[in-house]
């Protein structure tokens, strides 16, 4: 292409669009004149500091280094979606984001220099946001940036930071790369820092991606209040990650009514029924997704029709406890019960719901419509309080025989009383088994709790294999006096019975 030719063509272009060349040039100046302005293209103030590429080391903005490790850039992308404040306000008026591989105007050695200068000139005064996993595979060379391993780049920046924000499940514990199937050797920020004796405070913000509202909430804490937010035992912001998604779910009412979606894209979905039967991990995943929502509060997973896949599940000290390995297959009912980093297959619904998660039982027990799918799963009240007062309008049912379908497919009909007894027995034996773990978790902190839990869980697993046949409840069918719609729903349900999973170390406070 001939440049000279095009130059003339541009004049034609202008005239063809009704703009005179002269008018255009008067407004914007000639190319030569424009390039002549180059000597003032950097703010004068930047020159006040000799050889600085970051400008002033201090000012109104809180210095931030944002490093991407083995990332998909999804957490940066998510950050780009926020409003109030929007990302431009954040990087122009809240923080001085001196290094960010996606937003930085600089590239190559220039951007590395900006990082090095920030670490040196702002030591102890900047926040490090780390996105993506750290990879220890092949001595750290699984991730190579600017002739350095990702691990070393992180450690240097972390050591000198005011605080480290591990942004997204990958940064918290390796995320999907924590799967044993890949040799990349993923590890989270907190675990890696512990290995290297770095004591800079860590704030873990899981999620895939992390909701940008969570990051900005933390930044506001740090930037405007000069403090780190209150953290839970996993170093996750307590107010954000204390409650299960299920607790604040907009479809929760349908759960309690026993109204479930059993097929994607169905009429039930259109009516916004509960996705628990489709494998929703909301009951065991702790985050406030349903409150903050995503994409400028436009929607969130469950609202759009998808069961939660538990992407906030991340144990900072254990990469194998990553959300993919813990939660897949996502659309199958979750049957695993996790205690610390131990996974057991509960043999009974009752065991899971009653024995382990007392707190969750409280959550779920209230107002539960005793449809046959749920009946017996929750050992909370033998009769709903409201039902007792309004026998003619009761929405629960009581006293009917129960049909238990065992794992081998055989059915057994037992009386309501006997059912209650069995469930009660389960409840008590489970409490006994788990009592030691719970007690030491409260008394002895994480480490002790994990060890105790592990040991107890092992025991518990071994013991559940004992023939407690009545406990193998898959479906509890009710007789026909149950409401018609509940009967209909139950026929579709294979095993939509309540079960809960909970880490013993969570929720101890």
């Amino acid at each position, binding site marked *: 292409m001939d440049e000279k030719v*095009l130059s003339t063509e541009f004049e034609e272009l202008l005239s063809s669009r009704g703009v005179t060349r002269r008018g255009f040039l008067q407004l914007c100046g000639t190319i030569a004149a424009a390039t002549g302005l180059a000597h003032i293209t950097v703010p004068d103030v930047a020159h006040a500091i000799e050889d600085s590429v970051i400008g002033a080391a201090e000012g109104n903005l809180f210095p931030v280094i944002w490093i991407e490790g083995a990332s998909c850039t999804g957490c940066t992308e998510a950050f780009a979606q926020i409003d109030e404040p929007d990302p431009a306000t954040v990087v122009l008026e809240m923080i001085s984001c001196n290094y960010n591989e996606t937003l930085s105007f600089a590239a*190559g050695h220039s951007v590395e220099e900006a990082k090095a200068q920030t670490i040196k000139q702002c030591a102890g005064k900047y926040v490090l946001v780390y996105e993506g996993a750290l990879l220890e595979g092949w001595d750290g060379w699984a991730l190579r940036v600017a002739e350095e391993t990702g691990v070393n780049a992180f450690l240097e920046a972390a050591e000198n930071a005011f605080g480290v924000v591990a942004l997204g499940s990958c940064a918290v514990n390796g995320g999907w790369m924590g799967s044993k199937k890949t040799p990349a050797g993923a590890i989270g920020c907190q675990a890696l820092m512990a290995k290297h004796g770095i004591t800079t405070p860590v704030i873990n913000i899981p999620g895939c991606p992390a909701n940008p509202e969570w990051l900005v909430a933390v930044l506001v804490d740090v930037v405007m209040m000069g403090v780190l937010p209150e953290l839970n035992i996993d170093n996750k912001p307590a107010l954000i990650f204390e409650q299960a998604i299920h607790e604040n779910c907009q479809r929760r009412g349908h759960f309690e009514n026993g109204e479930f979606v059993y097929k994607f894209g169905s009429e039930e979905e259109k009516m916004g029924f509960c996705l628990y039967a489709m494998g929703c991990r909301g009951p065991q995943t702790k985050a406030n997704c349903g409150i903050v929502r995503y994409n*400028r509060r436009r929607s969130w997973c469950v609202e759009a029709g998808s069961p939660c896949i538990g992407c906030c599940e991340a144990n900072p000290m254990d990469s194998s406890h990553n959300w993919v390995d813990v939660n897949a297959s996502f659309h199958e009912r979750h049957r695993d019960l996790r205690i610390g980093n131990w996974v057991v297959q509960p043999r009974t619904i009752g065991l899971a719901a009653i024995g382990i998660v007392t707190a969750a039982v409280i959550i779920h027990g209230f107002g539960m419509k005793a449809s046959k799918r749920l009946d017996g799963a929750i050992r909370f009240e033998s009769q709903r309080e409201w039902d007792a007062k309004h026998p003619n309008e009761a929405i629960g049912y009581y006293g009917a025989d129960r049909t238990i379908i065992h794992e081998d497919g055989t059915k057994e009909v037992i009386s309501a009383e006997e059912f209650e007894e069995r469930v009660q027995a389960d409840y008590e034996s489970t409490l006994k088994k788990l009592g030691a773990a719970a007690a030491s978790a409260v008394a002895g902190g994480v480490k002790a709790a994990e060890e105790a839990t592990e040991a107890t869980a092992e025991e518990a697993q071994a013991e559940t294999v004992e023939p407690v046949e009545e406990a193998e409840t898959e479906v509890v069918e009710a007789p026909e006096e149950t409401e018609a719609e509940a009967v209909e729903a139950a026929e579709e349900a294979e095993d939509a019975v309540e079960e809960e999973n909970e880490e013993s170390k969570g929720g101890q406070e």
Partner: protein
Amino acid sequence: MTRSTIDPVTRIEGHLRIEMEVENGVVADAWVSGGCFRGMELVLEDRTPADAAMIAQRICGVCPVSHAQSASIAGEKAMGITIPNNARIIRNLLEGAQFLHSHILWFYNLAAPDYVNPINALKASAADAHDLAVAAGTSTNTDLKALQERLTKFANNGQLSIFSGNWFDSEGGQGYKLPPELDLICTAHYLEALTMQAKASEISGLLGGKMPHIMTMVPGGTMFVPTEEKLDDLWSLVNELYDWVSSTMVQDTIALVPFYKDALNWGGGCKRYVAWGVFEDASFEMNNRYLPAGVLKDGLALEDVNEDLIKEYTGHSWYEPDDVELRNPRDEGLTKPLYTEYNVEDRYSWCKSPSYDGQCMEAGGLSRLLVAYKRGVPFIVEQIDGLLATLGVPGRIDVLQSTLGRTGARQIETLYVATLMKEWVAELIEALKGGDSEFFRDPTTTTGDGTGFWEAPRGALYHTEHVKDGRITGYQIIIPTTWNIAPRGHDGEPGPMEQSLIGVPVNDVEKPINALRTVHSFDPCTACAVHISEPSTGKHFETVTNPWGVK
């Protein structure tokens, strides 16, 4: 000879290193290398196709919808599903929203910083800038004076934030060429674009639950079922985006061209293209997609896509020597990594070299547009012919085969997608009005093989999987950037991006801004470019380091 390096390349997805030999101010040779290994294909083994659609998205936070879509199509082919019409439309809308998000973000927030200097905008006359915007026919939604005051306040504080270490002074201050008024306008649009790309992702959030990493795409259709309250939001957001895109993006591009017209002279690359096609029409035929499938050989000769001709070569990559020189990923997908040493005469990249009919190919927006042009898609033909005429070079489609051409082509595509979004919303409303309430279909088999040909915003995307009893036994992915950043192929020909760099003027080896412009014109996305399907000899990776010993 001088060595010039950009590592890390910023404003892309992932980790990328560019190394160049510069001779007499021009790049004489170039090597492109991806820097991160994660192992996605391994993680997908033994999972269900539905889980694969969820997990595979995590390859890339910029184009997760495309990966979910490609994985879902592969799963549907393997399990014998044709998705319902409603699901087709909703998935087009999801993909379209991602294209809009991605292209807007890429042009204004990732690529434009190679051309626009916001600090220079401080010197502008806001009144003149407004007049200039009117003259250039571009939108003026921002209070330019207020923006200038905001920037001044920022500059006076002295901390440079995202401008730290900028290249505004590259090439002795000659690198950035816009007059202050145009810098001010483009800075205003940089900020507006941040809002608009987020609006586009709101559509993804509406239909997909959240973005990035949507939740409702599943083999069989969609989990999302529209209600009235969702439809009106969708309709409104789509219109808002169209209004902004149609009044801003192509106009800004044309305003920039005169100042950087030199970039129409280089950066062409291999000038052969692949496009697998994207946005399904009711026929579900690849060649009928709204942006159709096709391969353009030398001289832009158009051919239909033949999966058997897609092969990968590993002779210049860190993999074990192989008896088979060119492997088909579907039938012979087998990858055994083996690091030796960084030697441009031998092996020097993690990235394999994909080829079509034995030749390297460029993927991306330009590829799609050229194929659509050759296939006679009316909107594209009209827009490209119109643009070339406006530039005074009617019919000279070769003008687009350059750094600036590749950069500009995406704005035409953005306009096309914004237009289609409006059509799809109308189509969806019609379908629902007509009583169609089907959104999801069950598998007809649990064992089979399937390939999902699709397009991410940055180019041709290929997922192929083998499924047995509902579980994946083999999974291979070829993503767009693998095509583009490929090392030398079996015949020694440099990869597309390497070829595009050769001949690029570099007057400043410290800050090779033209090379950066060329790399950004591909919109690279490297996180997904390096992946393997089988662990092997891992201990050999330990010597992965930079062998160049230069900055």
